[in-house]
């Protein structure tokens, strides 16, 4: 069956595209739930791509150094680097009570400029290509299950499973622990939380730093899975903004963002691999490329009206 073969090749790619957006949106969830509007997911993810690319290239150049270990170290470096960058936003938004939208935009521009600046000094060009990315593997036993096996458990990246684990852990942390309750309350009614003796500034710092950490992982995932290179020219093509849109579309809920990011991942797959499949071949490249952004806009039209945004998101405390 031809349709089945199309689906089995689209779904694994869609999952690969979903994971970085999911990590970005999850980061945004932490930040917005704690009451800080975070529009710098794009910049944080891009910085994750750059820092992991620079690290992995340097490590993989060492003879005899394990490729997989290099990738793991690269992901950790991306986490640290993006968290440090997110501190700048946290400081501006929480301590200086700056306009969070402008501060986020400044971080985005800063990330683009600084990563390109550093890439120029390190490699002399705007591109960093890693030697080897994560290899796709079938999950033992599970990939043998009919229907589900070829869709979800064959030719997967190991990073995907870690990210899904992080998603589940975040859901548990935010909804099943007292810490999560406090964090969410900081985004709804900070003065009430403060009167209960919780340090709102500290909680918000944690929220923003978590968004940096998760976006860093998301950025590193882009690099070590499908992209394989840091390219200053195209950056990450607005994936960070798609993550924010997914956050709104998913109504600031973990399960909601899992669904909405998968929808966007599917759209990205159709845009990027559309030419491979005969059913999309007649559509011009321009329209295929436009598709995810147009779909996002339409999705936002339907989901923004009764917005469930955290009440105090964007309000300095």
């Amino acid at each position, binding site marked *: 069956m031809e349709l089945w073969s199309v689906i089995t090749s689209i779904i694994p790619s869609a999952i690969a595209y979903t994971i970085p957006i999911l990590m970005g949106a999850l980061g945004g969830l932490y930040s917005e739930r704690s009451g800080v509007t975070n529009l710098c997911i794009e910049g944080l993810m891009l910085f994750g791509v750059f820092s992991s690319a620079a690290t992995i290239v340097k490590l993989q150049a060492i003879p005899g150094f394990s490729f997989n270990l290099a990738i793991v170290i690269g992901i950790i470096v991306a986490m640290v680097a993006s968290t440090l960058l997110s501190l700048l936003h946290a400081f501006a938004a929480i301590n200086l009570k700056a306009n969070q939208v*402008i501060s986020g935009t400044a971080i985005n*521009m800063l990330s683009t400029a*600084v990563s390109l600046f550093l890439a120029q000094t390190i490699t002399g060009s705007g591109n960093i290509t890693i030697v080897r990315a994560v290899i796709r593997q079938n999950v033992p036993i599970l990939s043998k299950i009919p229907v589900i096996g070829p869709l979800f458990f064959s030719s997967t990246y190991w990073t995907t499973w870690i990210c899904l684990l992080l998603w589940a852990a975040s859901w548990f942390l935010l909804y099943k622990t007292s810490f999560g309750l406090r964090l969410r309350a900081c985004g709804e009614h900070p003065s009430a939380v403060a009167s209960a003796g919780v340090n709102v500034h500290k909680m918000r710092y944690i929220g923003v730093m978590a968004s940096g950490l998760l976006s860093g992982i998301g950025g590193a995932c882009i690099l070590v899975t499908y992209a394989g290179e840091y390219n200053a020219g195209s950056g990450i093509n607005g994936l960070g903004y798609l993550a924010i849109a997914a956050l709104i579309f998913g109504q600031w809920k973990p399960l909601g963002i899992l669904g909405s990011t998968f929808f966007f991942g599917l759209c990205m797959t159709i845009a990027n691999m559309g030419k491979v499949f005969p059913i999309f071949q007649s559509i011009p490249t321009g329209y295929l490329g436009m598709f995810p952004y147009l779909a*996002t*806009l339409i999705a*936002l039209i339907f989901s923004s009206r009764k917005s469930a945004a955290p009440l105090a998101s964007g309000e300095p405390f």
Partner: protein
Amino acid sequence: MNKKKVINKPLEARKASPLVVSLSAVFLGIVAGCVFILCIGKNPFAGFERILFGALSNTRRIGNTLGMSTQLILIGLSVAFAFKTGLFNIGAPGQMLIGGITGSILAYYLPMDMPRIIYLPLIVIASMLTGALWGFLSGFLKAKFNVHEVVSTIMLNWIAYWIVYDFIPRFIIDPTISVKSKPIETVHTLRADWLTSLTSFSTMNYGFFIAIVMCVVVWFILQKTTLGFNLKAVGSNRFCAEYAGIKVNRSIMISMAIAGALASLGGLTYYCGYSNIMEMGKMPSEGFDGIAVALLGNCSPVGIFFSAIFFGILKMGRGSLAATGIPTEIADTIIATIIYFTATNVILASFWNGLFKSSFSRKEEAVAAALKARGDDRGVDKLSKEEFKQLAKEGKALVAGKKEGR
């Protein structure tokens, strides 16, 4: 009657003006740039000297700098206009692309022998209209469906990017280089022979004068018309404006449409004046620099004019950096740092406010002491500016003498 200016605004005298805040943001941005250059082991002073050399050393370079500043002025105005209505327009790159592609297609298809006096207004109006439509879309989505304008303008940026990607090969492709549009004939660009020869073949064009006119127009709309008043009222307090009977949703749509028209005019001057081709798959970064221009210029047309020239110098001058081995991206780093510091202007303002306040209250103390010594019973706020200065000087000596006496 004494018509001399009387100091009766002690509150304002204790506050930092926006100019001081902007200048300190520039200063901090340049310091950050110096730190980055030092980090890679190069000489920052040599770097900044090269930037100034590259931007201003001869008429051609000055012309190029003004040519680059042209679109920065227009985009800065666009961002500032939306900002006055409380909207953040980061859709300028997309609006530029829409304006540029409209102008380029018209330039390609309109007859060559068309008189310029008809041709130029035609492309200006056409690109402003399409840009206004593009800006209006995000205003409409914000007003009717509550879609956050930052996310919707970003999505519209990418949609515009792919439209241009599709339109270039469809309508205006250069068959020899298949990723660029065919260069527009000079008579169909905004360039003028007298300007080109005056500045020894620089990129300066009529757009610069259009930008100046637009500065005046924007100032006029915002300061002198009911429309401008309504827009500003919506920007400062949406609910208050609604209560006063201003149609908030309509204001949002109008504001975004005007912002779109301004940015798209910037795109026209960029693609049909500053350069004469459009490339496939390229988002103009000038659209984002416009945010920096608007913020640094404190969203006022005069401020935007000067900050656009400043950024024009940075962007054109960086080309000469190659000789020193400093990556040219240092200019973008400085611009981004400046935005960060303008966003955090609270700390800059409070720093200067504190400084001004303490210096002003010290002066006040001195003046009071001098008045007491003279036996004058007028209050401090009844003095003219000159008298105040004079008395402050006298009082300073008195206060210092008193302290020594103790």
